[in-house]
């Protein structure tokens, strides 16, 4: 069975766009109630439980409230940019979803429909490019509000997101070294086991690229502006920073953008490191579409549904981790944040790329073919690196804000703690 072409392809794509956008928006709604429930439970409360069963309709009540509330605009705001910022906040997170494969391909009578909105050849380079646009919503919202607090939030946001962009991009380089391809469906296939076709690694990349997962996840946290990296919002210091001056639906759009971003990052981690829609310990779902149109494996509609479920479960678990971290860890101090980004993450990721590159070179010199053993050797190397990383970070020498060797009076105000 060949992939769909022509008019059927256009129709299928339009259908997928509508379907996945609705699913994403629904997921965002559920994520808001999920976050409030989880944080309530963590604090021994019961969370929202008044509207509908288990408080599930609370999201609808909130949405209605936000639609009906008064839209305010400060007199000193710059109107066009003030209106544009929430759109730019929500846009990148939603269009990022276009390159994420959700499930195994669906066979129809017109051909095979891949469960990805746009299988662009530049794959996750698109992710990095679009992800960077997210900073405009924050910076523009902060600046156009005409408020000092918002401006500070916007400035912090842009500095932070630009800084962690670097680590985010670099943490995916080992992935390219391993897969030799940037297309998301190909990355998913590379993590599955096949008896025919080009060689794959037969294991989720979270094992051979354990440390890479850590770096990607931390940078992803910083990209989504959530705790412990929520410096742009920082209720206590900046009165929620860049969206202080926003009200009603415009404020709500920033929130939707944030949750969509969280879901998107969780989905990206799933695709890159947790095998995408792959169901573990079961070979029946391993379906691969090669670039010349050949299909390996047997796609069926129920496999599509099952793999969609697997993808959903993995993504939800990662969203839970996001929420879990948010309600546990305190916020970084601003200088610690910048130190972590530029003085630690950047160097560590660069070294990591070098180490992985050399190990791959070594493995290929020894002559181990791509596959399980190849991944196992990399896994051992990563375990060792994770140990080093843990030791270095645990000794509290890397992410503290000064103390030892700190400059005397006149240096940064916050120094002297941590040591």
């Amino acid at each position, binding site marked *: 069975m060949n992939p769909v072409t022509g008019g059927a392809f256009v129709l299928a794509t339009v259908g997928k766009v509508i379907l996945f956008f609705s699913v994403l928006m629904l997921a965002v709604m559920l994520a808001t109630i999920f976050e409030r429930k989880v944080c309530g439970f963590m604090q021994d409360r*019961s969370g929202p439980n008044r509207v509908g069963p288990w408080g599930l309709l609370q999201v609808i009540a909130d949405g209605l409230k936000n639609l009906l509330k008064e839209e305010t605009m400060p007199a000193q705001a710059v109107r066009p940019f003030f209106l544009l910022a929430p759109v730019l906040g929500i846009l990148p997170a939603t269009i990022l979803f276009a390159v994420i494969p959700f499930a195994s391909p669906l066979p129809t009578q017109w051909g095979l429909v891949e469960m990805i909105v746009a299988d662009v050849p530049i794959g996750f380079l698109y992710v990095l490019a679009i992800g960077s646009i997210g900073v405009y919503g924050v910076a523009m919202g902060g600046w156009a509000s005409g408020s000092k607090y918002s401006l500070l939030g916007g400035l912090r946001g842009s500095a932070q997101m630009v800084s962690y962009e670097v680590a985010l991009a670099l943490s995916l380089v080992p992935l390219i070294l391993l897969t030799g391809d940037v297309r998301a469906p190909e990355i998913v296939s590379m993590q599955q086991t096949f008896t025919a076709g080009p060689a794959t690694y037969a294991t989720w990349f979270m094992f051979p690229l354990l440390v890479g997962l850590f770096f990607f996840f931390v940078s992803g946290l910083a990209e989504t502006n959530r705790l412990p990296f929520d410096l742009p919002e920082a209720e206590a210091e900046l009165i929620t920073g860049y969206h202080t001056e926003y009200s009603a639906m415009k404020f709500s759009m920033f929130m939707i953008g944030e949750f969509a971003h969280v879901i998107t990052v969780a989905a990206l981690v799933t695709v890159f490191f947790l095998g995408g829609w792959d169901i573990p310990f079961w070979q029946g779902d391993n379906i691969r579409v090669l670039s010349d149109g050949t299909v390996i494996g047997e796609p069926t509609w129920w496999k599509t549904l099952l793999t969609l479920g697997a993808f959903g479960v993995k993504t939800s678990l990662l969203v839970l981790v996001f929420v879990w971290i948010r309600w*546990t860890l305190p916020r970084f101090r601003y200088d610690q944040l910048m130190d972590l980004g530029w003085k630690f993450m950047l160097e560590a990721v660069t070294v990591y790329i070098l180490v992985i590159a050399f190990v791959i070179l070594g493995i290929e010199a020894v002559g181990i073919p791509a596959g399980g053993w190849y991944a196992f050797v990399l896994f051992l190397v990563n375990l060792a690196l994770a140990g080093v990383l843990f030791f270095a970070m645990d*000794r509290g020498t890397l992410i503290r804000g000064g103390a030892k060797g700190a400059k005397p009076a006149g240096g940064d105000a916050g120094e002297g703690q941590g040591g």
Partner: protein
Amino acid sequence: MPGDVKVVERPRAESSYVRAAAKGMSITMRHLLSPNKKTQQYPDEKWELAPRTRGTHRMAVHEDGRAKCVACGLCPTVCPVNCIKLVPAEDESGERYAAIYEIDEFRCIFCGYCQEVCPVEAIHLGVHYENAEYSRERWVYDLERLVEQEHDVTALWDPQDPASQ
């Protein structure tokens, strides 16, 4: 370092970020999974009030339904915030009664002096607090409304320990 700030070199175990973070994460996860939630589902589950809770006033009545108040004027005198309005009157048999008796619950600080000073144990504070209203006028309780209240009256002292020892 500004001035003579002493920098304490903490031991490694104390300055451990990863271990501390992991410990925090385990604590929150334990609370997430624990079924023991502390939230009181308020309108469904009410507080259990102590017998000496001082809340909304209540006027005691004789068996025939008349208010016990003899309009002696002690409670408006003792009231520290002047929230009691009393206009005394006399009936045909020469007994004094309150022609107007109003308590502004908005102004009241629920000190309980009125109950303490009352010679005939007519005015009482009550074990009751849900007295929200839609207008300020409704917060001024007249005699009729004070008589209508049905909640328990406040105990001024613990019957087992009257001298608070």
